[in-house]
């Protein structure tokens, strides 16, 4: 299948300082990607390079089968057919909602323009606000208008820079789902930049974890959570602990909690000392289990408790349990492990 966006060995630099490099990924038409990483990791620079606001220091960007960026040769943003949604929405305060949405529809006839604006406003249920000005809208409404304004000229790709960061947490997830639905309905290829993993999981088909100027992993939400390729991804995504152990065969790891079986990634020879990532949902509460561990701390999360358990060696373990299993600190509870993917890392010295 033809790729809508291809990023090859891309690097972005400001005044000679490389902020991100060696980036490779691709998106199929209609796919929604996400660049996820802590602030200052270079993800926004990458997005701006795709938009054409920053030149590439190395590598290439291909959009809809046409090279748009390579060192020393960058197609101007206005000729790229990209749509962009900004963190601050960047609505034009002197124009009405309808005129904002119509801003990029210069080539269409007035009738076509009118029709497209109406169609998009209806899509987000804001038809009644077409003559309003941006300052009269709520944050959520401004966000939707910024989105359909970027969608209006039917761009080859829609770029979103932290589009939900100014919303409060509840609205954020709801909007992320809404936006995903809209993009999927129109078959729009899009990339979202965010530091919020829940937002990434809610919106994206495929997620790239970015940190310290490089793209560490490109995969589905499940993959980056359960099969992180390195410690950075393992630490940045979700919670968990590193359990020391030893590879004893091609499918077995020996730990303090016994022998854990599963496919072992190639490159891990028997006898090599490793650490195994254990996510809280890998640890199942089971009163019948022989393995009884002491509760060191607990945090109530509504639907569940997150228990911190202590092993005899002092090693801790996190365990997610339905909240009517109410145990006090100091009690011993039974657990068993249910690890499907073995995420192994060499021991840190």
């Amino acid at each position, binding site marked *: 299948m033809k790729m809508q966006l291809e990023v090859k060995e891309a690097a972005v630099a400001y005044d000679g300082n490389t902020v991100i490099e060696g980036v490779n990924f691709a998106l199929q038409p209609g796919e929604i990607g996400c660049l996820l990483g802590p602030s200052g990791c270079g993800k926004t620079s990458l997005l701006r390079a795709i938009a054409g606001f920053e030149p590439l220091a190395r590598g290439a960007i291909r959009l809809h089968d046409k090279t748009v960026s390579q060192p020393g040769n960058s197609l101007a943003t206005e000729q790229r057919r990209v749509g*962009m949604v900004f963190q601050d929405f960047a609505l034009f305060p002197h124009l009405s909602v309808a005129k904002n949405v119509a801003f990029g529809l210069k080539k269409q006839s007035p009738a076509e323009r009118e029709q497209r604006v109406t169609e998009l406003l209806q899509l987000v249920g804001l038809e009644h606000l077409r003559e309003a000005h941006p300052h009269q809208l709520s944050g959520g409404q401004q966000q939707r208008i910024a989105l359909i304004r970027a969608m209006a*000229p039917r761009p080859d790709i829609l770029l979103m820079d932290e589009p939900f960061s100014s919303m409060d947490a509840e609205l954020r997830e709801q909007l992320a789902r809404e936006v995903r639905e809209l993009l999927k309905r129109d078959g729009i290829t899009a990339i979202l930049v965010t530091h919020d993993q829940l937002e990434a999981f809610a919106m994206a088909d495929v997620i790239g974890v970015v940190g310290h100027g490089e793209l560490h992993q490109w995969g589905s939400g499940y993959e980056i959570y359960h099969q992180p390729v390195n410690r950075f991804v393992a630490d940045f995504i979700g919670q968990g602990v590193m359990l020391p152990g030893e590879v004893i065969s091609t499918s077995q790891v020996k730990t303090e909690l016994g022998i854990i079986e599963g496919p072992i990634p190639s490159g891990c020879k028997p006898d090599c000392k490793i650490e195994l990532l254990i996510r809280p949902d890998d640890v199942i509460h089971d009163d019948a289990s022989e393995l009884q561990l002491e509760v060191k701390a607990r945090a109530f999360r509504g639907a569940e408790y997150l228990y911190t358990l202590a092993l005899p060696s002092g090693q801790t373990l996190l365990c997610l349990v339905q909240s009517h299993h109410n145990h006090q600190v100091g009690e011993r509870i039974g657990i068993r492990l249910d690890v499907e993917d073995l995420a192994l890392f060499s021991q840190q010295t």
Partner: protein
Amino acid sequence: MKLTFWNTTVTGIALLLAIPLLVVVANVFVPAGEVWQHLAATVLQDYVVNSLLLMVGVAIGSLLLGVGTAWLVSMTEFPGRRLFEWALLLPMAIPAYIIAYTYTGMLDFAGPVQTTLRELTGWGYGDYWFPEVRSLEGAAIMLSLVLYPYIYLLARAAFLSQSLCVLEVSRSLGNGPWRTFFTVALPLARPAIAAGLSLVLMETLADYGTVQYFGVSTFTTGIFRTWYGLDNAPAAAQLAAMLLVFVVVLVTLERSSRRKARYHKTGRGQQVLTRLPLTGWGRMAATLFCFATLLFGFLLPAGQLASWTLETYQAVVDRRFMALVFNTLELASLATLLALLLALLLNYGRRLQPTRTVRFAVRVASMGYAIPGTVIAVGVVIPFGWFDNTLDSWMREQFAISTGLLLSGTIAALLFAYLVRFLAVSLHAVETGLERITPSMDEAARAMGERPLGILGRIHIPMLKGSLLTALLLVFVDVLKELPATLILRPFNFNTLAVRAYELAADERLADAASAALAIVIAGLIPVILLSRSISQTRQESPSS
């Protein structure tokens, strides 16, 4: 540094505008000989002492009026509060030299006040004591009456921005409203008040018309006298440099106060303050205090000017007067357009290439607002005269042609001085407008396929229109009011309204001066209206946002 269109343009403009200041400072090292010793032995001490006394007097007067009225209209409720909120800005429309001679006309022996007094009591000349308005104290009162709005504006904004919570915490800890004012509200507003006060004192130092008319020897009158009386340019420049030392102290005070004011902001003023409802005598006193400030600062002098104008306009407003108006408008329009053009160039330069050099250059270009007109004039005359003489002698040697004075005594010199002094005003207005256009708006437009010129036409120009108009109006009015630099630099026989009003008043033809003065005051109302509009806007926005 790579040379580009923007950084060359911006640094070029800044260097040009810095010439007067550099010349004045450089002249410190030129020996002025006996003249300087003569000055130091005779009048220099007077200049320093009088300037300092005047500053102390104006500080007391303007703090009393400015902070008092600001607190009343922002924190309490009394009859007429909403009217006073903007009306208290009106005195800003009257230049100090105009209010000075208006009061002189009202209070001198033949004026309406003393005449009425004599009629009522039957006293004659020499039978009674009457305060002399033409004195140092009088000058301090005049300047306070028209300069307090600077403090009023900043103090009022500071009081309004104090969050209700901070004041409520004080009340909940057992402090009454008065104690809360002195222990919480006033200290929190102190940086803003200090910033306002430093602006007031800068204006006080820059004043020439008032002190000259009242015969008070200060730095500005001293510079004039050294220049014209003793004909010694280096000595005048050295006096100007001494004056600059005072200015630098004030600018530093203002800058640091503004920085502190930012930290002292305790809230976003989201909740509307419950004003302290005054009762009985307090109510009456509040209304009376605000009304008296307005009466003496604006209503009385403006009324007097209007009545003089009615008496004399038939004789005064003739073809020569209209030529005067035309001169003034022409000069002000030219200066205004140039200032706007430069402000646009500098602001766009900084937006498109925000390098350290460019940012520094823009700051240099906006320094002039703090420099007294007299100082700028001295800094313009010296280099322009040198340029003319050098060119003239070179041309005579080479081609036996005398070029004479090309720049000195021309409108060009005057326009240049106005630009140095008032560019900051238009720079700031344009900057405020440009800040509203965020970089992401430019990028959003480009992402939707718009080219740079299209972005200018569809976004920047429509969004900047208001700020550009403000910039035009503010500079226009400032040029109209400017006196000392115009006096020194104007071409021979070229008069403006301000110069004419000053000359007539100096000849004791106060009533004849009123037409020109009233025209200046009416023009001066424009910025007051702009300011009061922004005040009413913040009032509307604060409850909702």
